């Protein structure tokens, strides 16, 4: 049997109070390591996906479009163009002759067919290699269709998923600033990095509304081009999922002087802080803080008795957490602590030095911190640390199940709201039904039937 940890990856694994120095991160995945990461295209696609009145055309051979068809649980209150898959489906002749003509015809025919408010054109590996001038095609078709047609430079090999976030933000930045901002009150925000999985953005928007804060736009949950175009009229950007939309927040700070704060809507503590921080930003209006306190009190009083129930059942259980962005891991650790569960493995695909430093501070001694990990490492530590539960995305699920432990999906494909106060109960319920299911009793590690061995 091979070894679980490759020498070139040793520095991307850090055990609190045992390892020396600091963790290595923000580098390309090691070839052959079976990384759980995707590519630049994936980063762009996840950020822009929820914009529901835009056409998302993938320029390349079919795979990239097939794999991202209806892939996320991002809800829309109106149009659902984002749930369809469009591709130029490049073939051999297109690759030889160049794909520009085909792209131009594809944008025109799909534009006329679906009447979108904008078009995003994703460049895949091939588009980048054959040198199609996608920007020029976009300019030409934008004129014809009368809506913005925006290139997204998401060639898979041109960096990591994070570079894809940046490419998506570049495209969004071209829409922001084009709309009419008259009538937007001073107490107004944009919510960035919230993708409306299972309607989470609606829950969060509702909290802010109840406080008296106007939400100008959500980027990109339940996204509409019209709303995004007015985003520069807001007074504050509230950024969740720090990895993906910070580029846009930085851009808007520079160009429009709009400050931003980082928040998380996951976990009682973080969700409440997300409301208080916004209230405090608009401190000239003390009513906001009072209102926020009221909401927090009200919401917590509803869920606390149920949390108590889950705490009694789950206290002492151990979780392994492996997620896309490190910010989510912070929230998960805090949320699990609230029910007296501990986190024994905490890792992310795209964390940076700062993220991992914070993660280390937050973790218990002995916790394994992982950057850009893979099935063999994850499974080894899950067993070593005797985790009862794995929290991650679809690709981590079979790792947990093969080891005979519970799994919670905390990725973009889930269909259950886990943000906000209500989401907290959903989360605990998920954890509870995963860990406490009687089926694990039959798993080999708990059930050694002599007669069958």
């Amino acid at each position, binding site marked *: 049997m091979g070894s679980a940890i490759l020498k070139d990856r040793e520095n991307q694994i850090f055990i609190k109070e045992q390892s020396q120095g600091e963790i290595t991160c923000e580098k390309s995945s090691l*070839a*052959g390591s079976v990384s759980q990461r995707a590519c630049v295209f994936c980063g762009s696609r996840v950020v822009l996906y929820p914009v529901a009145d835009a056409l998302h055309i993938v320029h390349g*051979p079919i795979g990239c479009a*097939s794999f991202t068809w209806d892939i996320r649980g991002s809800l829309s209150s109106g149009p659902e163009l984002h749930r369809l898959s469009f591709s130029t489906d490049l073939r051999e002749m297109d690759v030889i002759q160049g794909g520009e003509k085909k792209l131009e015809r594809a944008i025109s025919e799909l534009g006329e067919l679906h009447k979108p408010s904008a078009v995003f054109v994703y460049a895949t*590996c091939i588009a980048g290699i054959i040198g199609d001038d996608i920007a020029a095609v976009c300019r030409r078709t934008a004129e014809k269709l009368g809506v913005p047609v925006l290139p997204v430079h998401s060639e898979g090999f041109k960096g990591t998923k994070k570079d894809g976030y940046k490419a998506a933000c570049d495209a969004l930045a071209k829409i922001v600033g084009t709309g009419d901002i008259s009538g937007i009150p001073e107490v107004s925000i944009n919510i960035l990095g919230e993708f409306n999985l299972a309607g989470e953005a609606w829950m969060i928007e509702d909290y802010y509304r109840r406080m008296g804060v106007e939400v100008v736009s959500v980027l990109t949950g339940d996204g509409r081009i019209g709303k995004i175009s007015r985003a520069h009229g807001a007074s504050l950007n509230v950024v969740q999922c720090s990895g993906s939309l910070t580029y846009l927040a930085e851009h808007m700070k520079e160009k429009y002087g709009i400050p931003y704060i980082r928040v998380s809507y996951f976990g009682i503590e973080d969700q409440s802080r997300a409301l208080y921080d916004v209230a405090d930003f608009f401190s000239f209006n003390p009513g906001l803080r009072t209102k926020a306190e009221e909401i927090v009190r009200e919401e917590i009083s509803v869920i606390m008795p149920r949390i108590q129930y889950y705490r009694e059942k789950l206290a002492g259980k151990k979780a392994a957490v492996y997620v896309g962005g490190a910010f989510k891991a912070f929230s998960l650790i805090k949320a699990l602590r609230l029910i007296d569960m501990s986190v024994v493995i905490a890792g992310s695909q795209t964390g940076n030095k700062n993220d991992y430093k914070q993660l280390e501070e937050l973790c218990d001694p002995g916790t394994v911190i992982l950057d850009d990990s893979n099935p063999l490492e994850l499974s080894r530590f899950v067993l070593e640390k005797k985790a009862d539960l794995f929290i991650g995305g679809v*690709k981590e699920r079979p790792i947990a199940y093969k080891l005979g432990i519970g799994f919670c999906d905390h990725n973009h494909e889930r269909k259950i709201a886990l943000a906000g106060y209500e989401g907290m109960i959903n989360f605990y319920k998920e954890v509870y039904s995963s860990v406490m299911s009687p089926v694990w009793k039959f798993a*080999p590690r708990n059930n050694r039937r002599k007669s069958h061995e």
Partner: protein
Amino acid sequence: MNKKTPDYVSTSNPCKVCSPLGVSLAVKGLENAMSIMHGSQGCATYIRRYMISHFKEPLDIASSSFDERSAVFGGKRNLRAAIENVSLKYDPELIVVAPTCLSETIGDDLRAYCRNFDSTTSAEVLSVSMPTYTSAHLVGFYGAVRSVVAGKEKGDEKRQAVNIFPSMVSPADLRYLKEIVGSFFDKSMVMPDYSETLDGEIWGEYIPIAPGGTPQKDIASAHKADFSISFSPYTKEDISAACWLEEEYGVEHFDLLPPIGIRGTDELIDVLSQKSGRDVPRNLVRERARLIDALADSHKYTFGKRAVVYGDGDFVAGIASFLDEIGIVPVICACGTPFPRFEEYLKNSLEETEPEYIGADVDFRDLEELMEGKEYDFMIGSSKGYPLSRKRGIPLVRCGFPIHDRIGGPRFLHVGYEGALNLLDTIVNTLLTKKQDDSTVGYSYL
């Protein structure tokens, strides 16, 4: 029977995936083997995610993780690192390298890379030769099987009497095929065989490469077998392992209809019985008889019903053939990938019914337009047809690959008499559910 839809230049809601996916699936069915996608990291990861949602099993697929440097100067260095790291971690006996559209476009010569590979790995390293963007997943699937059969170092020993090269069927299908063939021949090879690797048990500890798969020694002896059987229209192309064995080593080749339904299964069993000189065993005779009995029980519910069949060419032909046998009209037969002789091939598998449309390279928008203005009783194919079935209010019988919105896809049996019985029950019960749900009376006897 011409294409009625306008000729779109774009593809919407595709009814196909890409060829590297097919390679990874085939390699999962080879004993102690690992695949490397030679391209960007995303290819391997997306393929893993797509297949995990269907098989619900680990799918460790490596990538040579291209960066800008490799895209400009070629991916040899990355491939070398990938092979070494995969060897260290997984210690496979065989590594299969798949080209992706990126590596093919920049002109990486994988054959040369793999042949002159001077590394410390003890694994045999083979590359797949296939077009990456002209076709789809099936091409990768067959291409991988052929490249491995052709490229593998040959053994001297005769191990199996017959090589079976199935299409992209389910693990349950593979198990059953092995059982059928096993009742005629003591030693046979089914390749690929992911019946255990992609429908396995809980382990307790993580096993880097799932146990099971076509034995490496059998693959090395494929050229010594008496004959091969394949079930695919693609076998006429240059990507069929059975064709290669016939051309290079004179191994007799039977290219059969997919063994879905009675005719297809009969044909397979006849060949097996004839070649082995053994009678059809009693259990198979009984299975066939039970199936015919069930057809009689259900013929009133099926006769004249109108179905829409979509998916891979051989799958569509197999399903259409079975529907035809039980009196259901496969009104629309749509193949998701390009397939020049599809109409001819499909018509050969029908006896009773005449489809209104037979076409290849069809996406779900084409299918939606084809279906417009007419009534259908059900759709049959992968779960990717669900949005359309929901929109049209037509029941969907999920089978084939992928099934992303139900459990049990890998355990769904399509082939042989038992598979036909399973299909029959599923189809008829779908029709009865619809009838019952739509009825104002709600009879409890139907």
